[in-house]
């Protein structure tokens, strides 16, 4: 991958992280941990990979992304804002009574949200339906679904996994954000979904393991997924929960808690410094 592009994506990801922190701080609620762990992947998809057009968010030929881990809504919203679907300033209205930025993604209200999610496990089923529909009418769009590692404890995920391979949905790519933490603790301790890769393999999926904060690995993985035929692909990405804000990293406390004013300033200072550093190295 081109170094300039990598740098651009790094910059986009930091901006998304700033949007996340802005949003959850303003809302005094929300899920920063799993939003921050997904930020790099969403930056990569929306700023580089997906065929989407903010001026035509309902285009029938667009690629679809289903945020199956709907609680990472702040990450999706900040990404959509950065991509031009709505102003980044709107992040300050997150979860507010008169805002369209609902606590979990609402496809009716928010431009760029392809499927309403929030109740875990339901998004991947919807993504399978979109992919099947594409096959029925020979459309060329691709469908992406981002799942949490705790989320895959839901049984419906495996019903969908069976369905996707049964119907050979090679236009579908699932991504598992494997940050290893869920509300009650480590996923391995709450209800282990491991080995995640072997499980998907057994369900007939093409499986790729990557580092979810490495854009070069993402590029390779999604290129590989594109070449897979007659099988859905799952990309299991190892990530750090809370990535990019040091005191939130790998901490279950920040799964569903908003930073107060002091923590907000600390987080924003780190992110601003990181951004300045990245932008400085570009210029």
């Amino acid at each position, binding site marked *: 991958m081109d170094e300039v592009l990598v740098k651009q994506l790094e910059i986009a990801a930091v901006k998304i992280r700033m949007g996340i922190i802005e949003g959850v701080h303003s809302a005094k609620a929300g899920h920063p941990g799993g939003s921050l762990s997904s930020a790099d992947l969403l930056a990569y998809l929306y700023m580089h990979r997906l065929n989407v057009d903010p001026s035509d968010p309902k285009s029938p030929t667009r690629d679809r992304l289903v945020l199956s881990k709907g609680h990472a809504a702040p990450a999706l919203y900040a990404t959509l804002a950065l991509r031009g679907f709505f102003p980044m300033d709107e992040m300050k209205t997150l979860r507010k009574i008169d805002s369209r930025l609902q606590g979990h993604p609402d496809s009716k209200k928010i431009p760029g949200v392809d499927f309403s999610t929030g109740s875990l496990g339901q998004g991947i089923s919807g*993504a399978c*339906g979109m992919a099947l529909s594409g096959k029925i009418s020979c459309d060329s769009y691709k469908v992406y679904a981002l799942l949490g590692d705790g989320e895959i404890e839901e049984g419906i995920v495996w019903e969908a996994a069976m369905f996707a391979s049964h119907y050979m949905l090679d236009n579908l790519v699932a991504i598992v954000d494997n940050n290893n933490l869920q509300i009650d603790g480590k996923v391995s301790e709450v209800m282990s979904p491991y080995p995640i890769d072997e499980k998907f393999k057994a369900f007939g999926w093409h499986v790729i393991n990557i580092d979810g904060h490495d854009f070069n690995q993402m590029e390779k993985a999604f290129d590989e997924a594109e070449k897979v035929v007659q099988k859905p692909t799952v990309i299991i990405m190892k990530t750090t929960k809370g990535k990019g804000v040091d005191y939130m990293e790998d901490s279950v406390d920040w799964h569903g808690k908003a930073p107060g004013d002091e923590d907000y300033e600390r987080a924003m200072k780190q992110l601003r410094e990181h951004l300045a550093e990245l932008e400085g190295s570009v210029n």
Partner: protein
Amino acid sequence: MDKKATREGYGDGLVALAEIRPDLVVLDADLAAATKTSIFKKAYPEKHFECGIAEQNMMGIAAGIASTGKLVFASSFAMFATGRAYEIVRNSIGYPGLNVKIGGTHGGISVGEDGATHQCNEDIALMRTIPGMTVINPADYIEAKAAVLAMAEHVGPAYLRFGRLAIPVYNSPDYKFEVGKGITLKDGKDVTIIATGLMVAEAIEAGKALAEQGINARVINIHTIKPIDRELIVKAARETGKIITVEEHSVIGGLGSAVGDVVLEEYPVPVVKIGIQDVFGHSGAAKDLLVEFGLTAENIVHTAKALVSR
């Protein structure tokens, strides 16, 4: 009178619907032979998709397909379509208001021998609680087929209930279905019998029997339980002063509750609810179960006489 199950109307209706809606997709969860989507599968194998025994996922699949603009029907027994998959129907179909039609067959006690686990007397109640969900319970084969065809023009989530049991076909072939419009089958001034589904044929019989005994009962078929025909119900309350509701469903949350809500809000009159009285069913032949649970013309007559003389 000819007898035919409303689920046959579902299967035949889907075939007819595909002619006017080429984008139609039909899903089933390993019950195609029973739900009668097998009829559609035979005619349009490329538009019928088996989802296996996974009703929750089927509802999510339906939502995903609908999100791309196609018309989709998801089929299973009423119990599993509305019970097992309730939360997916609420959050993935109802909340985004997607154009998914749910075909729930084997509704009610007349499932018979399979027993209580399969006799769904709660589906109408469950589906009624979802904002924006249309709830339809056809009374005979012709109405069932017409209701499915009417979905070509209906946008948004809908639940259609069909039965297992062969029941009288009383409508004529030129019958036109109108979503949300109740049908007055017999006029009357002493009492109104409001029925839905397979109880409509019983209500017609009861109306005749009552007439012979000097009681002039109005008989109404409410095939659309949501949105319900408020105007027709209020008119009946005003003109007859007494209402009996009859449904093969729990008296909690079904037709009786819906009618009761309207009457209570607009023109309070006594409402007596015939239905499953907050109990589970059990195995047995459908006709015997219908008698045991009071879902007969005889019980309607008995109830009407008691209400009129009270």
